[in-house]
């Protein structure tokens, strides 16, 4: 029983990390109908920028704030100069080619700048301790990730569900032309959402680094995980991203605990089953 609770906590930690990653992708998918395969690259870039900042300024909190801002800036540039030309469902293939190409370029640039070794980041000193949970000393940093994920979920929920901006975003998900017809600058909203999505990816990279480390190749692993979460949970909704993260996070953790050799396969098996039962995901919008 105790091991179950420990593993449940582990699952919750991983779920919250997945949620921070998936929220951004789900927003971009859902709001702009854009397939962004460079999401993993933004995660890794955020993580590495965080690493450099921690080394330079010896302050984790600073990198937590600055890295997402920098990456969001990059996201805005990409949106304005490159992505803006290819909106619309009929341009999905172009979006795939563009964002995948960007991901490959980013991967090489990252490797060129930071090297090919596996880098690890220490959690901030304030969160470096442990909390006794039964016989185990559970790292405080991981517990704080649970709290952080829940807070972020709440903040995003309030933003999307309770603010005018959120209403515009939700309306844009349903019918972008109509929103534009109401006189709202939909281009600006798109750009803002894309920036927010990439900022969230970078944020995930910074907070995930003490848990998953940083290395070339992680970007594509994260991309696959996030795509699975978003597809399982349902495209376009925050609730979907949250549910998907919980399911996949738990599946990964308990898969590793019970069948370590099949752990990699287990997540995809879960995804296949969910898609068979509910093709648009657990909480997805019908028709996505």
């Amino acid at each position, binding site marked *: 029983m105790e091991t179950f609770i420990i593993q449940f906590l*582990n699952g919750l*930690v991983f779920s919250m990390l997945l949620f921070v990653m998936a929220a951004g992708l789900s927003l971009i998918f859902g709001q702009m109908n854009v397939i962004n395969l460079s999401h993993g690259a933004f995660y890794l870039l955020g993580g590495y920028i965080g690493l450099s900042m921690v080394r330079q300024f010896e302050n984790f909190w600073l990198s937590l704030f600055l890295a997402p801002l920098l990456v969001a800036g990059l996201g805005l540039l990409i949106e304005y100069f490159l992505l803006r030309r290819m909106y619309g469902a009929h341009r999905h293939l172009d979006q795939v080619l563009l964002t995948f190409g960007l991901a490959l370029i980013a991967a090489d640039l990252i490797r060129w700048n930071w090297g*090919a070794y596996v880098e690890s980041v220490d959690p901030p000193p304030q969160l470096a301790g442990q909390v006794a949970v039964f016989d185990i000393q559970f790292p405080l940093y991981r517990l704080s990730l649970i709290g952080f994920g829940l807070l972020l979920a709440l903040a995003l929920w309030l933003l999307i569900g309770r603010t005018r901006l959120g209403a515009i975003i939700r309306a844009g998900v349903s019918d972008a032309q109509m929103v534009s017809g109401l006189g709202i600058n939909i281009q600006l909203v798109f750009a803002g959402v894309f920036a927010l999505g990439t900022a969230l990816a970078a944020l995930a990279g910074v907070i995930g680094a003490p*848990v998953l480390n940083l*290395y070339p*190749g992680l970007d594509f692993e994260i991309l696959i995980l996030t795509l699975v979460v978003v597809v399982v949970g349902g495209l376009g909704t925050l609730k979907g991203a949250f549910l998907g993260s919980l399911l996949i996070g738990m599946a*990964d953790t*308990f898969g*590793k605990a019970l069948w370590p050799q099949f752990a*990699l396969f287990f997540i995809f098996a879960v995804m296949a089953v969910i898609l068979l039962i509910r093709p648009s995901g657990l909480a997805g919008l019908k028709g996505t």
Partner: protein
Amino acid sequence: MSQKSSSQLTRRQFLKVAGVTAAGLAATPLLSACRSVASGPVKIGVLLPYSDIYAVLGESITDAMRMYFEEVGNEAGGRQIELITEDTEITPDVAQQKARKLVEQDEVDLVAGVVSSGVLMALRDYFDSSKKLLICANAGANPISRSLKTPYIWRTSFTNWQPNWPVGTWAAENVGKRAYISVPDYAAGENTITAFTNSFEAAGGEVIGVQRTPFPNMGDPAPFIAELADAAPDLVYAFYSGGAAVTFVKAYGEFGLAGKIPLMSSGFMVEEDVLPAEGEAALGVFSGLHWALLLDNPENKAFTAAYKERTGRDANVFAVQGYDTARVIVEMLNRVEGDTSDVQKMIDALPGISFDSPRGPFKMDAKTQNPSQHIYLREVQEVDGELHNVVIEDLGEITDPGDDSLG
């Protein structure tokens, strides 16, 4: 009259042409002999991982190889030495493509390298059928010295059995009788399990569980650590290397198991390349390996100092293996006087090679095509403010049995 003169000219012309042709034919074997012997550099294909978890291993081996070649003026057997490096990406498919490229496109004289046991197993048939010599600088897959031995693959490193087997006995006698094993799910992990289990159980121990984690990247290590804590063994015996070692050992410390359940491994998990990143969590870990940074012999002292000056980092076992690989290649080339045209001649030159290496006396065992060497029991201790592996016992000279009788 015109007919007579033209035929005279034709005959003269014919004789000229015939004379030149005959001379040319006679000279050709002479010319080609000059071409194949002592002309043009010896091209050595270097097949190593330069990315992902084993990147630092690939770079350490390459740095040390270049260091040795430079020490001998980049020349052996009367010819210059040229290295062509390719990244295996720890992936068997990619490694096969790169091996083909080196052998068939670049037409290298021999290949050196290979870190991952999985890659070595995948390349075994290619080198065997293409009759190209591979000097393996790391990968310890047991079958290559046993059931799948081929005359074209020789090792300067170890078999996975070597650093694990003698430690099983030591662990049962000095640490505890109930062990839980944690390894990555590929060839090297399997070899670790069989070797350790064989001697550990022979000495009265019991392996209460085995955990195989996804290879090369295990993702979040927390669930695996939690399982180890739950099993509460007397000791955990693990094998991880490179980036995976950092992930595992750090998580072991984060969850409070370091110092609570003794952690042991084959030396790679706490080698000098990963110790700085692992930090405090690695303190007190016991490991077995055929070398240690602080091993006290003149070759090692010279080697470690030169390596540190060249790269700014402490030497590690992979560098030692790279260094010895370069030396074996040079000695072989000297023995065949630079003649790389006959692979059998090169192979015949290998068994007799012996010299003093940083790891001690280097003896190539002809039967297993792998070194016979001492295995040292080390403990991670703080030495002058830094963490290093200190030799606490010499477990004797260990030679691979050449079959699976001992695991």
